[in-house]
């Protein structure tokens, strides 16, 4: 399974970075990482009904002294725009790992508009966006993003290119 390696590495970085709260709306590309976090007794994993809830969760956890991370796919970025205003005004630390849809190899054309706008939307709301195109780059970038967010009170998004996830059909997505 192509995603297993990076997911385990990112889980290690989250642990090393002191992340205790993980919010997510699932994506097939995050399946392994979500499972690793659920299996980790030191992490409180919170499935969300919408990505927007993850921003509130992260803000509340930080007010209470805990570090968190938010996992989602690129379509979810459209659901968090307004509440990123709070993140910017309050300088809440925020780390999002976003798996991309709507890129080369996309099998669902309805994913394309949000996928194409994801980075611009985040940047418009003051989030630092870093894109990775290779699995081995994800964990080092996660480490850097955690440090930047929690030591400098900044908001960071890691966009994982769709070709890293490598899903090209609904059938593949189900069997991920």
């Amino acid at each position: 399974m192509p995603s297993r390696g990076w997911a385990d590495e990112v889980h290690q970085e989250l642990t090393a970075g002191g992340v205790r709260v993980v919010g997510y709306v699932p994506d097939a590309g995050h399946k392994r990482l979500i499972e690793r976090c659920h299996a980790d007794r030191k992490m409180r994993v919170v499935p969300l009904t919408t990505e927007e809830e993850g921003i509130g969760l992260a803000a509340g956890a930080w007010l209470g002294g805990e570090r968190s991370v938010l996992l989602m796919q690129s379509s979810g970025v459209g659901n968090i725009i307004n509440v990123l205003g709070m993140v910017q005004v309050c300088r809440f630390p925020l780390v999002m790992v976003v798996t991309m849809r709507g890129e080369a190899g996309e099998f669902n054309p309805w994913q394309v508009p949000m996928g194409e706008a994801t980075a611009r939307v985040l940047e418009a709301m003051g989030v630092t966006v870093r894109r990775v195109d290779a699995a081995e780059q994800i964990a080092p970038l996660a480490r850097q993003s955690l440090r930047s967010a929690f030591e400098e009170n900044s908001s960071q998004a890691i966009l994982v290119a769709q070709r890293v996830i490598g899903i090209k059909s609904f059938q593949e997505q189900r069997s991920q």
Partner: protein
Amino acid sequence: MTLHRRDVVARLLEKRGALLLVAGLGSTAWDITAAGDSDLSFPLWGAMGQAAMIGLGLALAQPKRRVLVITGDGEMLLGLGALATIGVQQPPNLALVVIDNERYGETGMQATHTAHGVDLAAVAKACGFRSSRTFRYRKDIAKLRGDIHRRTGPLFAAIKVMEETLPLVLPPHDGVMLKTRFRRALLGNVRERGTKVPPQTPS
């Protein structure tokens, strides 16, 4: 409806002790400020729909402290999914109180869905809140205050209040200041790296 929102909120916050408080934007932020500003209050000026989730994050991070969210019916309706998310997490230390005037108070008193019979307490109950009720009378508020401090949560209460236009009592609006004062009061001297240091003993 006979209850006055400022009176209700002031009574809920009597002797609040170590209670951690989040208030939704608009009228409930003014209500908690009218009752007395505190470093351990986090009034929102935006992020509509997220008050309950901020309360959840705080409750998970601080399992030994009681967390109260006070918000309005319009704010709650905007983030109704949070009730389901909280129901799944079952935080025993979280209470969510909706001050329900059945109106969008800051935008011209338009009717919210609760004016048309949408029952927030029933929604919360269906989502798995351990206790969920609608209150209409002043005599119930003291007991609710006790439950907020002691009863195993998650607890939900909708309090039906009169439609009133009241003087604005505005909290500080500098977001960084609100965040920093809250963390400092709760966590003590937070190191620059953001790691937790032993919390202050509640007074």
